[in-house]
């Protein structure tokens, strides 16, 4: 979803992708790996373990501190702000996908929340004007244009990012107007934005992730399936694609 992006995430994604392709991902795929479109599965599994450690020893403790220090209302305001600041990118992707109605909604949300919502910290667009929120990103735009996701990839820190979506994240950084506004503390803005997005997201998904981990026979494969299904649902903007369902 746009808004996760920032200059740092783009650089990280590109670097990790390069490193992976040039080196560590060189394994001989088994027929199962090919069938799952996951030729780098052994490397991906190792990266997932690494990400699990980062999550356990760094992310979760700081999420705990975030919840302890910042009250519910403050966290909601931060969430609203992060969502709002990503809307220009969402808007461009709406337009690139030819989704005029959704582009209009995004434009309206940004205008309302930036003004009446005091810089985006409040969300009158949803509550008073009933304009629903949605996410878009360049990975989805590419998918709408017919680009396949490519082999499954998990990147360090970032998580599941098949090439199409990783490339999309990089493009989103360039589509984001804040990238092109020059000010002294730009690095801190990028780092802070990414970090608070991480806290916001992880805080919201904590119990869901725990539930998935507890019920999984193979957490890696579960995550892969969930990621792909979620992405397909996002790409179709929630319209059910029932023709692709398997026979029972």
């Amino acid at each position: 979803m746009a808004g996760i992006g920032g200059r740092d995430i783009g650089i990280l994604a590109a670097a990790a992708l390069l490193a992976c392709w040039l080196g560590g991902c060189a394994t001989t795929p088994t027929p199962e790996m090919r069938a799952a479109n996951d030729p780098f599965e052994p490397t991906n599994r190792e990266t997932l373990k690494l990400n699990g450690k980062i999550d356990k020893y760094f992310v979760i403790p700081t999420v705990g501190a975030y919840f302890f220090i910042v009250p519910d209302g403050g966290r909601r305001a931060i969430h609203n702000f992060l969502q709002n600041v990503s809307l220009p990118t969402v808007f461009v992707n709406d337009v690139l996908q030819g989704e005029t109605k959704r582009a209009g909604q995004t434009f309206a949300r940004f205008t309302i929340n930036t003004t009446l919502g005091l810089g985006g910290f409040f969300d009158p667009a949803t509550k008073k004007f009933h304009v629903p929120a949605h996410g878009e990103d360049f990975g989805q735009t590419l998918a709408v244009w017919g680009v396949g996701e490519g082999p499954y990839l998990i990147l360090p820190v970032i998580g599941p990012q098949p090439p199409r979506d990783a490339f999309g994240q990089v493009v989103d950084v360039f589509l984001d107007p804040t990238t092109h506004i020059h000010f002294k503390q730009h690095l801190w803005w990028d780092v802070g934005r990414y970090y608070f997005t991480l806290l916001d997201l992880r805080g919201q998904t904590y119990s869901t992730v725990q539930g998935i981990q507890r019920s999984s026979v193979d957490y890696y494969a579960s995550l892969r399936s969930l990621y792909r299904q979620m992405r397909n649902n996002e790409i179709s903007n929630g319209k059910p694609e029932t023709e692709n369902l398997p026979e029972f």
Partner: protein
Amino acid sequence: MSATDLTPGILPLARRAILAFALAAASLAVATTSATASAPAEAYVQNNVQTGLSILNNRSASTDQKREQFEHFILGLTDMKRIANFTLGQYKRTASPQEQEAFAQAFQSYAIAVYQSYFSKYSGQTLKVTGSQQRAPGDTIVQTVMIDPNDKSGQPPLEVDFRVLGEGGKFVVIDFSVSGIWLALEERDQFSSFLGQNNGSIALLISHLKELARNYKAEH
């Protein structure tokens, strides 16, 4: 795993999704219904939502009684063996009838233990049928939305779809999805991967499922 392992896109699943899974599970309901409505599959789902909710909302029943009623409720309806076989994917072909039977049993205990673990999360949500789509004769997707009286976010409600097989008066629910994510599909992907990693050993998968079910039962 990192927080971003679930980006972009876990947000629609956050918080409410667990409840929706619980609710959807609770709505996989009893026996056959001779629906006379113009869209029998829709009526079937709506009726069973009511039956499921009546179990969850029954204040006079103890938690243990609810669990028992719920188990009966699910088994009376779903073709667990068919779902279990589906989740074996390509490994079904090589599994012996005995292995398939043992796996179906283990899968059933596991699925019910997972659903029951969501009971405590329920807080008044309901599902409303919004329409249906026929994939093929006797294969219908019934669409519902989750109405959450506690949700003040103003966001559109979560979408929960049911895949219903059958025609006329006899139906069976074989899968459900939350925000476009189908559960049996996800289970098939998981189990196939597990079996691929473990020389196709269905016995090992069975023991793993049994262990997970035991863990769930011990915690609740």
